[in-house]
């Protein structure tokens, strides 16, 4: 196990090593802002893109790369809903649970998803294919109920369409 010392803190990095290409991208992001802390969210997203989630060991690695405190990275990593701190499926299905989708039968759609996949909201299928999560209004309320799979917006989605819709996501 390696450790990384930053200002006043020592946190185990759990053997996590930042990919050199990711490190480069994070350093480039740092150049877009007047202070390195600002690149923190982008850095977490870069790590997440490679690993699917942000492993604990990535926190001190990002802190060291940006020259900021571990606690500041951890604070940010635990605040934002699209930063995943646990492994997620290959495809994250975000189901809009806001009011317009609620009024166009979101709850039925959510129940159909949980039943079809055999998991509850917040869980991942045993084969590691899908994770189900709620999301705020996806800005497509005229097409409610809506979902986002990866970068693809779908709506309106009816329960009967679920099996065919998911075929595209191996």
């Amino acid at each position: 196990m390696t450790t990384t010392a930053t200002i006043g803190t020592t946190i185990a990095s759990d053997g996590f090593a930042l990919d050199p290409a990711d490190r480069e991208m994070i350093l480039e992001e740092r150049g877009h802002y007047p202070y390195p802390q600002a690149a923190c969210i982008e850095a977490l997203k870069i790590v997440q893109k490679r690993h699917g989630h942000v492993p604990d060991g990535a926190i001190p690695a990002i802190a060291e790369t940006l020259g900021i405190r571990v606690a500041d990275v951890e604070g940010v990593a635990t605040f934002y809903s699209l930063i995943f701190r646990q492994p997620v499926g290959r495809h994250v299905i975000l189901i809009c649970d806001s009011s317009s989708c609620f009024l166009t039968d979101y709850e039925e759609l959510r129940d159909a998803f949980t039943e079809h996949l055999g998991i509850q909201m917040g869980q991942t299928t045993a084969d590691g294919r899908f994770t189900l999560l709620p999301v705020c209004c996806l800005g497509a309320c005229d097409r409610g109920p809506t979902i986002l799979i990866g970068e693809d917006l779908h709506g309106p989605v009816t329960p009967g369409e679920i099996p065919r819709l998911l075929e595209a996501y191996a």
Partner: protein
Amino acid sequence: MSRILQSAGERRAETHPLTWRLHDDQSPVLLEEYLDTQGYAAVTKALEQHTYESLTEEVKSANLRGRGGAGFSAGFKWSLTMKGEGVPRGYIVCNADEMEPGTFKDRLLMEQQPHLLIEGMILAGIANRAKQGYIFLRGEYHLAAAAIQRALADARADGWLGADVRGSGWDFDIALHTGAGRYICGEETALINSLEGKRANPRAKPPFPGQSGAWGLPTVVNNVETLCNVPGIVNHGADWFQALSGDLSSDGGTKLYGVSGKVNNPGLWELPMGTTGNRILELAGGMRDGLTLKSWLPGGGSTGFLLPEHLELALDFDTIGKTGSRMGTGLLTVVADNQSMVSLTRNLEEFFSRESCGWCTPCRDGLPWSVKLLRALEAGEGEAGDIELLEQMARDLGPGKTFCAHAPGAAMPLASAIHYFRDEFERGITRPKGEAHADPIPVGSV
């Protein structure tokens, strides 16, 4: 791909400044076409003919009111920005965090007409003497991100961004910042914290961002639709902008209005500011499946419910404000007669409860409690006094009691739902006050 913007007649530059260039196939308007259709003419005009004061004055007299929901005059806000000789140049931040339940307007503008937003930001940059712009885009808007990245690169390559903009000696650039979720990032001071790479807790005001915003420098935060209105004002003048809404409203310009819920033809339209709810609902084809309209939200989840009789009112900030609700984002959410106000209110308060940043007690602790009470009413297991307690909570969440406007936003639908539909809430009360319940209702995953 977003839904096609719908036309209520032909769209022209003079009458539909936000949408006249849009393509039927929803593909983005690229730089070349934008330039061929008066694009960036307002930047050229501003650099040649305006001082930062006169530019601010033009936008102020147009009475362009903030389209992010609060309706604050953009020109007035700009006149308060600290700027001038000896003051360090700060930032223009475009609030593109669109997450207000029921709101789907900014996404269309960014996906299909990113140069209009960039032009508006450059103009805001000139008027506020900013050195840098940031577009704070919510992380889920992937298509918009791609359209904006392309447009920024094209605009920069053509000299509209960067050092010495079009040979004027003035420099200004724009970067895209994408978020990572959380509705609270849309609150302007939380947004600034998030931009700085911090947790998105709002900041105390004063100082206002115009004095000390991002990284301590003067910062102007404006909504996407607000900024997209600026090029038209600079090109055609404040009087033209005022005339767009004619006698309908004292607020100038057009508005992207929309309807979602169980209507025949949900969608988005660019219409004169002050268009009535009836007209907008008519464009949306009325209620579907033989349903009847019971209630509606004028502009997102943080606005108050209204009744069908309010549809005859002009949808503008002051008129809707007089009803006790707010125009908010101006995108209507309609509720049908067979949909429960208690359930819908529970859904809304679940949203606000989950999205609270946790900074202040009424919001952090009050909202989950309200959800618990609403769930009990929904299940027909409420006890006498629950409604009065919810009303008290709505007051305690009201303006001035919390750090930011998130809690007052949560209070609006709660208070108005009880006010107009008290009978529906009363039907959920089946127990006398204080009687222990055999099967306690869990607080739930809020």
